[in-house]
């Protein structure tokens, strides 16, 4: 069954687009049920306080209000289990019990006839809060006299792993060392669709619609928290308006709203508003890497050591907000031959919104630190910045290579992608220099960086509970069309289209004969959902196994119908033929009709029905780090190099990205347009994080970024044109050789832009850029201090 035209790599329109373009999609906010009530949350106005009492009497007095509840009412609810035995337990509970640890923590919930009335009533809730001193930064939280967020703990450390690898330490002896403290600021995924939950309890069954990336995990978590068996819970993730990791957290509201539906016997809905989103959906990053490298005189890195310090916020987030710090450590050496590493982790609770997942998941932080250190080492040793990377990058002869972080890099185009990016970036810089030469205010620069990104990861390191498998079920209808249901679910990436192509490929039918079902626990086999650039890999692995079972059976039936040998059967476009016998053919409809309806025509020994379910666990994934934190936590690794060409206005500090270059390798490309869209979209988010986005807090722990007026997402004018080159180094162990492409784009912009800004300002001798976002005021302060330092020097010299 080979040599037919393939759906892999073809340019095909997305199957989900028509409904999304015409207003026909269904997001959670579009779910409407008879008698449905709207909920509004009363959230903590203080960063740290004891809850003395909550008074909901006035709220209850308003017309249209069906109920107002606090934690005390939730006597039949269990806290989230604390799975990770290495972390201190936080026992997340849907509404705050006794204490609030961040502005935005839910204290009470009010349910009313509509949203307006619910918000009116919510504004009448009053809580007696006894303010406590907040710990707003890691330094404050680690101080000897720090206020404790969890008074039962001796300090505010949620988890730490002190690593001392003696080989790494030995490598530092007698070598040049370069070190820095690199901080990726607090920002978040901020999907355009906020969170939302709707729930109905009817006939002993709970149905929950939620804007989630993992409906099956949500169902399992609900069964842990509510007095229901999993079989009595159905979770539906309808169209999801962007996830980016924000919706790969299980939130307390996903328990509260179903609980309300059960308690009130009415459907209940909650649609988060943007202010709520910015203070109560997970934040991310806010990771500091103290990193030191031992470097030979020729620029070769011999070892890195240091510490990843995570400002975790209030820690009430599951899956764990500290996991990205561990992911960062497990890939810190990137695509470089660095024989030794010794990097520990400490995650500290502070009085800010809890951190969680965001696209890239620790790798943007790791790469920012590593690439900044590469630049610094190059400058220190007088080696050109691109040249030092050449001296350290993995070459084809090195593969497969186990990095000192534990990652097993099985394939890739590390050097090729780097050289291509370096060349294109230089050409771009020349073009822009010619174009902008007349402008005395701007200076231009470029930066090139390189990285790998683990995809299809273990979830054990993140959840302390689930590992990494997923499932697929293939069912052929009597008319020869296919229903393919999967445990992964989409939040806009185009997964329906990807799986349609792969199913058509595996089953020998047209794309229009395939219907993908996802995002509904009643209609799909168990799976862990969509995050970690895993969906195509895990779903296609399971799909391939299920399709093999179906095809084996179909081939035998077709052979029987045509009185041929199964070995001679081929299939294409829904038609089975006999090799070497032109004219002989039966359709998928004929075969599926025999299997499902006219079972009297089945060959001997073939059972009726035409369906199969398979589960797939990607090979080679390790779930536990070794004593030095090393772990091959991912099934495979993509690689990429990014180049940024920027202008810096020395009068205002404003950085503009003029052009962005990327050479990217995610193995076999199944749908080129979708892959490009993922890469470009990720880069745009990365540029936002590099230049604009910051979830800012004042010194007392008040969130200052609560609308799009003070949390700046990039618009069409800030995102430059991009040059994208694809390399394809298939993953040897993955079905179809594909590697995930969902997250990679976001990783490169911060270090590439930082490097480019430094180059642009190199003749001013500005200090190193060590943190993001690289805002205009930040750049201006670097310029001003370098200018005044220069003046000081001049004055001193002239004395």
């Amino acid at each position, binding site marked *: 069954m080979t040599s037919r035209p393939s759906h892999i790599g073809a340019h095909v329109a997305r199957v989900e687009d028509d409904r*999304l373009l015409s207003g026909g999609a269904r997001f959670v*906010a579009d779910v409407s049920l008879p008698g449905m009530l709207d909920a509004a949350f009363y959230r903590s106005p203080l960063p740290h306080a004891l809850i003395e009492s909550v008074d909901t009497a006035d709220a209850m007095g308003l017309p249209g209000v069906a109920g107002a509840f606090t934690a005390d009412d939730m006597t039949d609810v269990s806290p989230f289990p604390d799975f990770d035995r290495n972390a201190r337990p936080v026992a997340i509970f849907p509404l705050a019990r006794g204490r609030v640890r961040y502005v935005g923590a839910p204290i009470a919930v009010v349910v009313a006839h509509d949203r307006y009335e619910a918000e009116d009533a919510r504004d009448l809730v009053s809580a007696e809060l006894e303010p406590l001193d907040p710990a707003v930064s890691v330094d404050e939280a680690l101080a000897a006299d720090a206020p404790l967020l969890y008074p039962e703990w001796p300090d505010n450390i949620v988890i730490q792993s002190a690593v001392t690898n003696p080989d790494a330490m030995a490598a530092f002896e007698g070598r040049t060392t370069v070190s820095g403290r690199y901080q990726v600021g607090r920002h978040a995924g901020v999907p*355009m669709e906020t969170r939302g939950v709707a729930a109905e309890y009817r006939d002993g069954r709970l149905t929950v619609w939620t804007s989630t990336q993992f409906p099956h995990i949500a169902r399992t978590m609900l069964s842990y928290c509510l007095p229901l068996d999993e079989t009595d819970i159905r979770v539906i993730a309808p169209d999801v*308006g962007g996830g980016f990791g924000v919706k790969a957290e299980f939130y307390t509201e996903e328990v509260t709203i179903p609980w309300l539906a059960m308690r009130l016997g009415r459907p209940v809905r909650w649609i988060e508003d943007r202010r709520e989103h910015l203070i109560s959906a997970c934040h991310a990053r806010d990771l500091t890497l103290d990193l030191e490298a031992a470097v030979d005189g020729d620029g070769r890195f011999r070892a890195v050591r240091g510490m990843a310090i995570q400002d975790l916020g209030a820690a009430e987030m599951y899956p764990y907000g500290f996991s990205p710090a561990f992911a960062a450590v497990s890939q810190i050496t990137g695509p470089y031959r660095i024989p030794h590493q010794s990097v520990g982790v400490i995650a500290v609770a502070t009085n800010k919104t809890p951190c969680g997942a965001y696209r890239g998941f620790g790798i943007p932080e790791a790469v920012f630190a590593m690439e900044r250190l590469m630049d610094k080492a190059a400058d220190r040793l007088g080696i050109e910045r691109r040249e030092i990377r050449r001296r350290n990058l993995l070459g084809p002869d090195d593969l497969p290579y186990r990095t000192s972080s534990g990652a097993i890099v099985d394939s890739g185009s590390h050097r090729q992608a780097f050289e291509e990016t370096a060349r294109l970036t230089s050409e771009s810089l020349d073009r822009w220099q010619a174009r902008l030469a007349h402008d005395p205010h701007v200076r231009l620069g470029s930066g090139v960086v390189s990285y790998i990104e683990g995809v299809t990861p273990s979830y054990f390191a993140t959840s302390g509970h689930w590992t990494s498998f997923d499932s697929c079920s293939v069912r052929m209808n009597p008319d020869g069309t296919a229903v393919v249901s999967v445990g992964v679910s989409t939040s*806009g990436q*185009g997964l329906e289209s990807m799986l349609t192509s792969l199913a058509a490929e595996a089953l020998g039918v047209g794309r229009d004969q395939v219907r993908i079902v996802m995002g509904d626990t009643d209609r799909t086999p168990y799976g862990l959902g969509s995050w970690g650039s895993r969906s195509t890999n895990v779903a296609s692995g399971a799909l391939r196994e299920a399709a093999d079972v179906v095809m084996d059976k179909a081939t035998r039936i077709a052979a029987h119908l045509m009185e041929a040998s199964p070995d001679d059967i081929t299939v294409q476009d829904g038609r089975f033929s006999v090799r070497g016998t032109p004219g002989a053919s039966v359709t998928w409809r004929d075969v599926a009709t025999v299997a499902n309806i006219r079972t009297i025509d089945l060959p001997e020994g073939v059972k009726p029905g035409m369906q199969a379910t398979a589960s797939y666990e990607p090979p080679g994934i390790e779930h536990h780090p070794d004593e030095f934190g090393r772990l091959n936590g991912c099934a495979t690794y993509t690689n990429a190099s990014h180049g940024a060409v920027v202008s810096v206005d020395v009068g205002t500090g404003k950085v503009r990205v003029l052009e962005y270059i990327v050479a990217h390798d995610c193995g076999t490309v199944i749908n080129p347009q979708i892959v490009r869209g993922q890469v470009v979209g990720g880069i745009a988010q990365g540029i936002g994080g590099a230049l604009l986005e910051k979830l800012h807090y004042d010194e007392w722990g008040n969130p200052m970024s609560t609308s799009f007026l003070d949390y700046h997402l990039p618009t069409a004018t800030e*995102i430059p044109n*991009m040059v994208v080159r694809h390399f394809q180094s298939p993953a040897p162990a993955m079905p179809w050789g594909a590697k995930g492409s969902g997250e990679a784009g976001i990783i490169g912009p911060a270090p590439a832009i930082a490097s480019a800004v430094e180059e642009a300002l190199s003749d001013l001798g500005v200090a190193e850029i060590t943190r993001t976002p690289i805002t205009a005021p930040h750049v201006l302060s670097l310029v001003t201090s370098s200018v005044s330092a220069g003046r000081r020097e001049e004055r001193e010299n002239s004395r």
Partner: protein
Amino acid sequence: MKPVRQPAGRLPVSMSVNGRPVELTVDARRLLVDVLREDLGLTGTHIGCEQGSCGACTVLVEGRPVRSCIMLGVQADGCDVTTVEGITPEDGLNPMQQAFREHHGLQCGFCTPGFLTTLAGVTADEYPDEESVRELLSGNLCRCTGYEGIVDAVMAAWGRDR
């Protein structure tokens, strides 16, 4: 007890929505976006911020793009209102929608109706080059696409090379 905000009364509104006459009585404080989505079931118009800054809720009022999250339903009294459902032909997609599909101008699609209605309310001549197109689009936020596919789609639908 805190003072209770008294919602003002209910008022009659008559408007034309996607070419059909609509008569209804709404709370004076009810936002146009809620009238469209909740009362008329036109859920293609989305809410991304309710602060007037993301553009997801854009509809056409008297042919001009308007943010329906910062306009009251009663303010649309006597107006022609067009939503994404109204710019979609009975059969298939309009040329701009087709260009979005062809050029991967959408991923999750949550922002998309706002872009489409914004574009439906302007003429190509007002935005002669890519820079001005980007300027036009900068009033709408998209978190998925990096705008590349959207700009490509607009340029293609307006018959321009990129």
